[in-house]
């Protein structure tokens, strides 16, 4: 018989890194970046600091594995810093986390990700993470290399030294890993950074990708999201095994106390109801450590059979429609957009909030007949792989987007130059896998996302309908000028009539077709009225002036270098009359001036500072 051996957690993950997002060289780069940025943002939010993050990614050589490059990933934040004694634990030990099981909407949850990144660096480049940290009280920063001791699942800090750092506090982490870089597309670095920028309006991001210039995306909100206090788990979300394990945290506590203090929504009345549903009354006073498996089963079943209040929704946080509206404009030049933040609700006994931002961009080279670009988020972290099985994708596909003026092949994502950003926030998001790439599609959650999408779609359709009406008016005006003269001319020839009849007929024709175009104008005005009513409602809801809600242009693309951003500004200035038409054409000439004036892009001050990162 073979010998049974026991492995450490680190050993397990070192052999199964594909389960936590390191299944390919391409994913390895993205996951490493993602874990480092998530940690930086979480740390800043925990200490009430407005995050300013620098990201630099470059190729520094050839990777040790086949078909890979050696990629350097540097992430630097202005967070509170990590105590030097904790460095090894944070970067080199699995399941060492300040957030595990807390029931909060933080990005990180278990304390696996960054240690996995260190392991990947160590496995592919024989060198763990190079970390520099400085907390508020420190005069000098501490720098060193953290490796994972895989056998014992402990972190080791090597080459520790004190160095000067002109930052008051923060962390800088550097990984050299085997990987490959993809800039665009679903799994692209730019897509990740755009997503992070979108759902973190308070983030000030500087990044330099490969040979590109440094790009600065300024924050559009000065408010640091307050992470709501965690709530106790709801008993209906538990399975029997989990229920028993949970009880072990409470030692010799009596069952009634365990039920009341270990879970949310269990009151004295609930205890009575449990008894009615079959919980032996005598067990309530017994210590949980003394309960047998049979007893636990009885307790568990009676709890599950009893109706309880749904859990509180106070533990979820939202980005908010106003911040989302500002933030989406950091992604590029926008024709129009629609945002929707649903009220927190309960899905599968877990508090959830869904937020949606739909926007049509003019400068992202998105094709009319290609599916919309989809940005998915779970707890404000972009999800970039395996979209087909995700609750968000299912919900989008279940909506009939044709009702809102978009093209949609049957059962697929709609088509067009739109970005659909959907964020699901919950302290208990159920992922399909450990690498957190796909949200499990429960019926209730899909329905909740679907509702948010439909509400956002309705708002969007007002813009699209207005465009259709504009195009209709334009077409009608064109018809009058193009076909009218031909009609009269040929009739005059067939009837062999003279110029006087011709003139009279032309006048009559103009009069008739003028009436028709007036009708089209009236129809357009009606569409415009409906759209402005929607904008007013939105502005009122957000407590802003109406003008500020009428944003038609965008600030700047964070992904563009400084020069190209300047050209965008010029375009915005020049195109004050241009706006999209039904056929997505930009036509300055044919647009009636009255219509054009309505859709002037509201210019916003553009911060044009090129960040020169001191090296």
């Amino acid at each position, binding site marked *: 018989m073979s010998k049974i051996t026991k492995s450490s957690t680190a050993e397990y993950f070192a052999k199964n890194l594909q389960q936590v997002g390191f299944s390919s060289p391409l994913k390895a780069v993205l996951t490493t970046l993602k874990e480092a940025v998530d940690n930086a943002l979480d740390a800043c939010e925990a200490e009430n600091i407005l995050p300013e993050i620098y990201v630099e990614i470059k190729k520094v050589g050839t990777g040790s594995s086949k078909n890979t490059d050696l990629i350097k990933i540097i992430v630097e934040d202005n967070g509170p810093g990590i105590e030097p004694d904790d460095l090894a634990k944070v970067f080199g030990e699995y399941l060492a986390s300040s957030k595990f099981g807390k029931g909060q909407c933080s990005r990180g949850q278990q304390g696996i990700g960054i240690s996995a990144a260190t392991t990947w660096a160590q496995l592919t480049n024989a060198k763990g993470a190079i970390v520099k940290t400085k907390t508020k009280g420190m005069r000098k920063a501490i720098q060193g290399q953290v490796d994972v001791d895989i056998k014992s699942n402990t972190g080791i800090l090597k080459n520790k030294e004190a160095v000067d750092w002109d930052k008051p506090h923060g962390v800088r982490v550097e990984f050299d890993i085997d990987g490959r870089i993809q800039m665009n597309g679903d799994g692209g670095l730019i897509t990740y950074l755009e997503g992070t920028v979108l759902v973190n309006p308070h983030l000030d991001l500087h990044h330099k990708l490969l040979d590109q210039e440094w790009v600065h995306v300024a924050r559009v909100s000065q408010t640091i999201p307050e992470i709501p206090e965690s709530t106790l788990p709801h008993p209906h979300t538990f399975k029997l095994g989990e229920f028993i394990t949970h009880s072990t945290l409470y030692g010799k506590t009596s069952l009634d106390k365990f039920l009341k203090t270990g879970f949310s929504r269990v009151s004295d009345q609930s205890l009575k109801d449990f008894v009615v549903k079959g919980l032996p009354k005598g067990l309530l006073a017994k210590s949980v450590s003394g309960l047998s498996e049979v007893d636990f089963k009885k307790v568990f079943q009676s709890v599950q059979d009893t109706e309880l209040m749904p859990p509180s929704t106070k533990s979820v946080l939202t980005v908010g429609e106003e911040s989302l509206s500002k933030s989406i404009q950091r992604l590029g030049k926008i024709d129009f957009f629609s945002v929707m933040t649903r009220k927190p609700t309960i899905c599968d006994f877990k508090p959830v909030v869904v937020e949606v931002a739909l926007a049509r961009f003019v400068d992202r080279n998105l094709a009319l007949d290609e599916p919309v670009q989809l940005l998915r988020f779970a707890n404000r972290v972009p999800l970039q792989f395996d979209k087909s099985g995700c609750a968000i994708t299912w919900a989008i596909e279940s909506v009939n987007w044709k009702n809102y003026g978009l093209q949609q092949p049957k059962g697929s994502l709609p088509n067009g130059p739109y970005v659909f950003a959907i964020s699901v926030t919950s302290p208990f998001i159920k992922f399909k896998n450990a690498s957190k790439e796909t949200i499990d599609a429960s019926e209730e959650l899909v329905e909740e996302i679907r509702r948010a999408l439909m509400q956002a779609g309705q708002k969007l359709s007002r813009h699209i309908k207005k465009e259709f009406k504009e195009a209709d008016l334009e077409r*009608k005006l064109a018809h009058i000028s193009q*076909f*009218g003269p031909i*009609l*009269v001319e*040929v009739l005059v020839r067939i*009837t062999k009539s003279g110029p006087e009849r011709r003139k009279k*007929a032309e006048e009559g024709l103009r009069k008739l077709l003028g009436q028709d175009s007036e009708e089209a104008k009236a129809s357009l005005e009606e569409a415009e009225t409906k759209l402005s009513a929607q904008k007013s409602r939105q502005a009122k809801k957000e407590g802003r002036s109406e003008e500020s809600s009428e944003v038609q242009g965008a600030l700047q693309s964070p992904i563009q270098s400084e020069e190209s951003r300047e050209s965008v500004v010029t375009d915005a200035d020049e195109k004050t009359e241009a706006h999209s038409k039904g056929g997505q054409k930009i036509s300055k000439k044919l647009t009636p001036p009255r219509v054009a004036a309505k859709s002037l892009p509201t210019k916003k001050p553009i911060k044009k500072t090129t960040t020169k990162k001191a090296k």
Partner: protein
Amino acid sequence: MAKLIKIRELDLDIPKEAQRIAERMLTDLEKSRRPVLEAVKTSLDNSFYDPKVGYLTPGDKTVKTELNVSSVQKLARVVFMLEIILRNLDIGSVNTKRELYYICKGLIRSETKLRPLDFEGQDESDAIIDFIGDMLRVYREELNCFANDRGGQTYSQQLVVYETMPDGEKATIDLSSLGTSPFMPKNKPQSLKLKAKKKIDFCLVIESEGTAGTLHAMGFTKRNNCILMGAQGVPSNAVRGWCKLIEDELAVPMYFFGDLDAYTLQNIFRTLKAGSAASLIRNADFSAPDVKFLGVLPEDVKRYDLPHYNVKESDPVEARALKKAKDALENDPFFLDRKNKGLADILKWLLSEKIRCEQQSFFSVDARDPIIMEKLILEKIRNKSYV
């Protein structure tokens, strides 16, 4: 140039009527009134079928096109093409639909102000020509506009055709002298006269022109006193007019032989026998009401153990044909008429069984007999196995 032979007696003076319409339109415009053009509604809901008449005739419904910003393009195109047609009528010139399409294209593209009239494809100009015909209630041929010749390849050892040419000259075509080449009927049946050198027993119209050619090559017309014709799918005006002429002048029994499927029955056979809803105006001279459906009949499948297969409902073309067949049973006056119950029953059978059988399956009944199809067709005619 000799005057074109009339296709029928027509009381209407087309150029005068066209001028009257143009005059009315111009007067309306002068008075700021919206001109309206009215045409026969050419659809099934305006089609009537009387078995004594034998073809689909139009009802009272009309389509009115009133000038507005949406219809101004159509009206401009109508008067533009009407002018060209009137010129053709005036000088006695004829053109095919395709020629008219290219004539228009040339004129439109050479003059900037006409550009908005440009057609994206021939179907757009064809629709305008059809509208003019329906508006004046005249045949397209009476507007000196002919469709391209297609289908109707005819073989016979007994048939002689006398053709009056556009210049008045006469031509005599003895089909027995053409060898394996077929006679192609022209689009102007009014210019043809027929004579049978010897009694002709029947006329057989085969859906597939290739199969008609094969039967002829294997000696079908040598062994039988007949006219053998290939329809080449949905019968063109030429084929329909040609069949009508054979019926009128020779009074020989006519049989149609094609695939056993919904498309053949309702699109090909019905059009040959009773015309179509789209050509309500001219069905009288472009249909052969006495033609019988020889097969393939549902009973043939069993009797001859013919190879057949299931209709693929996932195939959009097949699915559409089935849906059309269902619609035809509910709305097509031809299939609703008691006289055509036998044909409607075949459609119902096709809908319930969802199978199809090709006309060429007759070749497979005895793979060693090269003239098996001929034998079976003759057997069916003898046994009156037709609908």
